[in-house]
């Protein structure tokens, strides 16, 4: 039952805690790009790839009491902190689906800033272009974020590393 919800719960369970809606959006997108079986539909939005489906699913799981969503006020903005509740844990025990366990990748993604994940997911979004074209896209459509050459280069290296770990990771249950 609700397998797509259960996958997200598993992801949050494996990550422990995810801080920020933007970060969650980008982690799921990148995981999807690494062939993890997420099927939320993404479109390009203000901060890169974004899934309305994922947003609604998270709201459903919050309303069902499967996840805790804590709103934290920062000085000029607020952010949301997500973690699994006991009810969410219980729900996972009755779920009947197979999901890989890429905890190392998720931990690594979760340790990055949402700004960096926004850049990485944007570059994944344009993966069919050449590296030069990707760079040009980043500097044009993400001009307001003022990404530097160094950040873009670091993101390229990170994407390569993710693809490598995707190959080497067992993805075993």
């Amino acid at each position, binding site marked *: 039952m*609700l397998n797509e*919800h259960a996958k997200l719960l598993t992801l949050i369970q494996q990550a422990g805690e995810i801080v920020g*809606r933007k970060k969650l*959006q980008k982690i799921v997108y990148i995981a999807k790009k690494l062939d993890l079986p997420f099927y939320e539909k993404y*479109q390009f939005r203000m901060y890169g790839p974004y899934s309305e489906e994922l947003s609604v699913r998270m709201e459903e799981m919050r309303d069902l009491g499967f996840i805790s969503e804590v709103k934290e006020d920062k000085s000029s903005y607020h952010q949301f902190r997500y973690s699994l509740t006991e009810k969410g844990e219980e*729900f996972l025990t009755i779920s009947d689906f197979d999901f890989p366990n890429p905890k190392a990748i998720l931990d690594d993604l979760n340790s990055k800033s949402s700004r960096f994940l926004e850049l990485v997911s944007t570059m994944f979004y344009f993966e069919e272009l050449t590296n030069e074209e990707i760079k040009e896209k980043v500097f044009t459509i993400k001009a307001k974020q003022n990404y530097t050459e160094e950040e873009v280069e670091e993101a390229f290296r990170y994407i390569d590393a993710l693809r490598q770990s995707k190959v080497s990771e067992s993805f075993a249950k």
Partner: protein
Amino acid sequence: MNGPFKKLSEEKVFKDPVHRYIHVRDELIWKLVGTREFQRLRRVRQLGTTYVTFHGAEHTRFNHSLGVYEIMRRMVETIEEKENWDPEERLVCLSAALLHDVGHGPFSHSFEKVFHTDHEHWTREIILGNTEVNRVLKEISDAFPQKVADVIGKTYDNKLVISLISSQIDADRMDYLQRDAFYTGVSYGHFDMERILRVMRPTEDQAVFKYSGMHAVEDYIMSRYQMYWQVYFHPVTRSAEVILSKILHRAKHLYEAGYEFKDEPRHFKSLFSGSITLEDYLKLDEAVIMYYFQMWQEEDDPILKDLCDRFMDRRLFKYVECDPSTQMKIWPELLQLFKEADIDPSYYLVIDSSSDLPYDFYRGGEDEERLPIHLLMPGGELRELSRKSDVVEAISGKKRTDHKLYFPKDFLEDESTHKEIKQRIKTLLMTQGG
């Protein structure tokens, strides 16, 4: 006008029940409408299975695409009064509006869920690939198809242009709300579009709206809200979608298991095997799908046959409201009972959630991933809509999640077999449904 931006010798018009007339002056637009990829949209209904609930909802993606083009044409006129636009930018807007849904297939929603395809991918393929659409667009310039694809993909460098076709208040939504209201016959989707267009003002990133026109914008937001719950997410339509998805799942499963269909499903083969080409995709339309559903009513597989009977003859699943957080306790028992009653729960016991048909309700606030609607105040400053409008504030970001459990009530009421098990199932479902 000569060169790539040629005008027709005289204006062409399409009679339209929503906008009265759709005006075409540009040769490019006229040629795009005539392409085989665009004409295909005549054979794809705009609202998928909604016609089982609202019998008038037989309008197609073709009608809607022309409507979006017409609204865009009027928006561009408004902008041109205030800014000097490159003539190519104008044609980028019009072409993107016309072609924004060209990649939609039959019953897109269910197809995309089952086969993990994406109509936006096909839109891009049609615009950039070896197609009539691509050849017509290239008459403007070699770079022109890419520009149109980027606007539709929301990755174009001119954010204002993107916002006209895809934002919280855009040509796409303004057409489908009015058109869907007209064809379904409901009274919720109406708002004063002329007024909205009159108070629209272009800025660098998006179009904003003069404060004096706020009530027209409020009406539009209310109409989005009402149409979602009354039409788009209607539980009977969802039931038909559930059955449609299960037909596709069953047919795919049978194909993979080596089942011999009486009539070879050749239009589906590449979809089943995950190797669909653009040419295969363009051959799919609703007539083709309905042909197979009718053929599959004659199949020996009882599940495929029954599901197709249900879809064709409108014997839909019934539903109960469902709270998965309490239902998880009875779910294993329910699954087991269905199996014991010889009713395969993979096809006949389905939870459908609001996230299965995500709809972007208006949400105010500046931290969301899409720009909220901004009002242009008399002093020149911008204010987010929900901060000025009590009506919009009242419906912004409110609880909007919902789950329903669908099942074949007729199977459960046939107590000629497994009587006690079916009675127990009904008790569980009714307890669940309240």
